[in-house]
């Protein structure tokens, strides 16, 4: 459990109302990890969401012959991990800290029942996650355009 005021300082939780704020605070803890820590592993159970306060996390995947390839760098004020919201509750990608990282970890098994039991609370949370997904999808689509490529 952490103080609600701490949650409200993070961009993802800003302006969040009760009772969701209280539920999240009751399911969260402050964490820190040294650089090069594997936070998520593809195919493993998705158990939590990290709201980064300081530092950077690389979301990516291990590619044969290339090693870990970063797809997106996630930074302070952003979140890592939403696979815990959707069956089969497994991580789709790996995530590794690229610097020392501190943040707020929200435990899925604790928060999920609140989201399921109260549709209004669930919707509020999913709307916030959807905005993050929209931004990441937007980023991925623009990169698919290969904007900087030679298109002569």
């Amino acid at each position, binding site marked *: 459990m952490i103080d609600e005021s701490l949650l409200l300082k993070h961009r993802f939780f800003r302006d969040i109302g009760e009772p969701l704020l209280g539920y999240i605070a009751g399911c969260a803890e402050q964490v820190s990890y040294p650089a090069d820590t594997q936070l998520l592993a593809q195919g493993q159970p998705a158990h939590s969401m990290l709201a980064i306060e300081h530092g*950077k996390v*690389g979301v*990516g995947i291990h590619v044969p012959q*290339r090693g870990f*390839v*970063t*797809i*997106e*760098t996630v*930074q302070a*004020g952003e979140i890592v991990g939403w696979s815990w919201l959707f069956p089969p509750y497994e991580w789709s990608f790996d995530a590794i800290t*690229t610097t020392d990282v501190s943040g707020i970890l929200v435990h899925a098994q604790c928060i999920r029942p609140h989201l399921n039991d109260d549709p209004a609370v669930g919707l509020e949370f999913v709307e916030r996650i959807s905005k993050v997904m929209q*931004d990441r999808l*937007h*980023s991925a689509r*623009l*990169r698919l*355009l*290969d*904007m*900087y*490529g*030679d298109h*002569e």
Partner: protein
Amino acid sequence: MAIMSETLTSAMTPVMHRVISNVSETADTATLTFEPLNDGLPKGEWGQFNMIWAEGIGEAPISFSRVPVDNTVVHTIRAVGSVTKALCALRPGEYVGLRGPFGAGWPIQAARGHDIVLVAGGIGLAPLRPVVHEILENREDYDKVTLVIGARTAHDIPFLDEVHRWRTGGLLKVRITVDQDCSHWNGNVGIVTNELHRVVIDDPGSVAMICGPEIMMRFVCKQLEDSGFARDNILVTMERNMRCGLGLCGHCQLGAKFICTDGPVMNWVDAGPLIGVREL
């Protein structure tokens, strides 16, 4: 009439220059320094361009990547077409013809006293490099300065050593992101607009200068507008098929504007309504 004809002839006649250096920046980009064989061209300013003529092949408009301080001229060129490929292949001692300088450049001095955000995509860093030089030379004249650089990969960032010096020099904040991870890259991966989200803007008079692929500029400008930038404080440098450089031939016409004379640097009030129009 005779005077106009003489002026026109002069502006259309390349002034021969000798290549004195060719420094490779990336796999397809090189910085060339030229010196005139006789009298040089008038000195260009930030954001202006010269037409560079590769003998027997053609001309290409290329922005200054360093504002001339003596009679030498510095251009950074990406080899994407027949003319630019020929220019990038030039060796010291070989010759080109230059016409210019042409166009409206960055109104950098109007930004004095304000925060500045520079956004460069790929080779778009070249026309912004003289702006960085001006800011660093007169650092006390400007408030917070942030340079955001986006590139396809880390191997596609020009002026890498210089960028590293800017980054470690502490006089401006440099944020770099690449679209694709590659070996030995420890920096950020993601679209350039992601980095803009992380730039704190608190000066209502902040000025943004953007150079990069047109699609990048559209999204960057929209984001800057959403974060409170005034449209006339958002400046972009446009690229069209410049030929004469004098606003006469019409090849670079964009709506009612000629990019070679009304641009290449334009504010978003003028460029915004035109940039997204198909077939313009």
